[in-house]
């Protein structure tokens, strides 16, 4: 159907072997529905994510991808069905919500760094105030992750002084500092200039190689092919198709998926 697979994002070979999937369940969503007012955005979502899985979610604009991701750490409330993250069910109980949020890291399209704090303070804020880790220790952790995303030297600058790609990497480091067991990404590269996209994808791939459970809304199909275990295609608030990347790209089953892929890969 599609002539060519999306191109690889990173030049070096990705170590897919390292990415192990356990059979433990990390996120379990069943029969979940969500409305905005009377608009039914998410319809009967069922989904299980195992620990170590890397899932890419794609679909046309407005199909509810962001909403789904945001339901997982309760930035949005669902109205029916169940979401169980790491064994904790998300109900209106604040304790559960707090617990889930500190287990789940999130990276936004527009980074949402705190502009009045330095990079280091951005990274240590939550560990100190939520996890109650001593400042010293939190800073060490932060530097560790900043090194990992390759910008330790920027630690004392303010977000406004960094390029978009650097900011997004800081955002990833900030989320990692809480030592989350699951990471959510909502179009982490779509606000970036082309040169910067690669930096961020590199970081994400590295994370994937280390076995992090990841749910990632993205249209970077190269990335999907390289690291995802599964690609989920959504439309009109429903999961329309899910499959392994190779098959998903080479042999999409549904008409919608075909149409979508031709648009995305075509131009």
């Amino acid at each position, binding site marked *: 159907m599609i002539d060519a697979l999306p191109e690889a994002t990173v030049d070096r070979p990705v170590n897919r072997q390292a990415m192990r999937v356990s059979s433990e369940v990390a996120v379990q969503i069943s*029969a979940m529905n969500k409305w905005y007012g009377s608009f*039914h955005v998410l319809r009967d979502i069922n989904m299980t994510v195992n620990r170590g899985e890397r899932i890419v979610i794609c679909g046309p604009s407005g199909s509810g991808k962001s909403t789904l991701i945001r339901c997982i750490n309760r930035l949005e409330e669902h109205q*029916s*069905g169940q979401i169980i993250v790491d064994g904790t069910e998300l*109900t209106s*109980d*604040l304790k559960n919500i707090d617990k889930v949020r500190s287990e789940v890291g999130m990276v936004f399209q527009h980074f949402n760094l705190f502009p009045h704090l330095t990079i280091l303070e951005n990274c240590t804020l939550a560990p100190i105030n939520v996890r109650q880790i001593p400042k010293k220790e939190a800073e060490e952790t932060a530097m560790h992750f900043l090194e990992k995303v390759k910008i330790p030297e920027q630690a004392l600058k303010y977000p406004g002084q960094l390029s978009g790609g650097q900011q997004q990497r800081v955002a990833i480091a900030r989320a990692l500092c809480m030592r989350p067991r699951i990471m959510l990404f909502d179009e982490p590269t779509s606000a970036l200039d082309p040169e910067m996209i690669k930096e961020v994808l590199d970081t994400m791939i590295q994370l994937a190689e280390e076995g992090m459970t990841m749910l990632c809304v993205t249209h970077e199909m190269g990335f999907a092919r390289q690291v995802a275990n599964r690609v989920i295609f959504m439309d009109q608030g429903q999961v329309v198709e899910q499959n392994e990347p190779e098959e998903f790209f080479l042999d999409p089953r549904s008409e919608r998926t075909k149409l979508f892929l031709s648009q995305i890969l075509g131009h």
Partner: protein
Amino acid sequence: MTTIPDTPKPVFRPSMLIYDTRYRSLTIQVVVLFLVMAGAAWLIDNAINNLRALGKDFNYGFLGVRAGYDINQRLIAYDSNSTHGRAMLVGLLNTLLLAVMSCALATVIGVIAGVLRLSGNWVVARLMTVYVEAFRNIPTLLWILVFGAIMSESMPAPSAFRGDDPAASMILFDSIAITNRGVYAPEPLFDRSLGNIDLGLFLVSIDLIAIVAVIVAGLLGHRWLIRNADAIQNATGKRPVTWWKSLLVLFLPLIVLLWALGFHFGYPELAGFNFVGGIHMRNSLIAMWLALSIYTGAFIAEIVRAGIMAVSRGQTEAAYALGLRPNITMNKVILPQALRVIIPPMISQYLNITKNTSLALAVGYMDLRSTLGGITLNQTGRELEAMLLMMLIYLIISLLISAAMNVYNSRVRLKER
């Protein structure tokens, strides 16, 4: 739409009142409600106890009692035998008169100063800057006092108009006298007056109603002319000349009516201590009017300047590049955009003017606060009742003004993606 049954509700535990988002806000609201009620109850209980200890009660009966004092400026009939309630009404009308006059003049001054401040004329722009800064940085009350002093110090007393070789004389063909007690101007009189109708609370002159009706009709006619001209322009492209028709529609009926009523001016004349006859605009009114208008004008000037600057230069250039003349550019491109920015803050300035009229006693203008909140309060010793009533009245005026603003805002908001 199908609703999927919710997951079974977990049993209720007390800790959920705080930890469960569903109950949490309810809990907080109940606590807040409780605190507020308790606070209010405490205050009211104190007030009741205190009033009892002082042997006072809370009632508005005093509004029906003879006031016993005189008010110089009264828009409705009033004398010292009238009630405190009526004195309050006189004061309220004086407040509203002052507020409306000041809003109008402040707008004119503010718009002129704002435009001049943007002008390329160096001297004028500087002068306007001095004006704006001086008035914005010195308290209103001081300006009111200064204007009061200027009015009473630098104008001639009525006695200066007396004698064979008077030190001062009336202007505009002996029709207007400017004195340190105010300005006396000719008043309109009608030979064949239609009389008054009694509205219970006050009298309204039928002449006035007739004149207003004719003016309104003239305006409607003018609007119709403009509409008609628009329609013709839309149809043919050519705009018919309408100004003389407009003038005719606006003024001819009025002139006829005035002639029919036997309109003539009653001129002020010096008799006894003062000028008599004519309209007397008292010093206190003039001082308050000028002080509030010029003071607020400085703020409005800044608003207007900001509004005009908010319309980017590109808009003018684009209009010019399309061949639009400066006046059309102003009317159809710049003003509609600038007004959206200007009007909301302008209305809050109107609100400020209304609130600042309460300083009128500083120059002896008898507004609501000088009557109800001043003499009446003082003579009857009803602080609580008078102050609450006064606050309520100001609050209603303010809420009406802000309601108007909200309506306007929601109507002109620019459409965005």
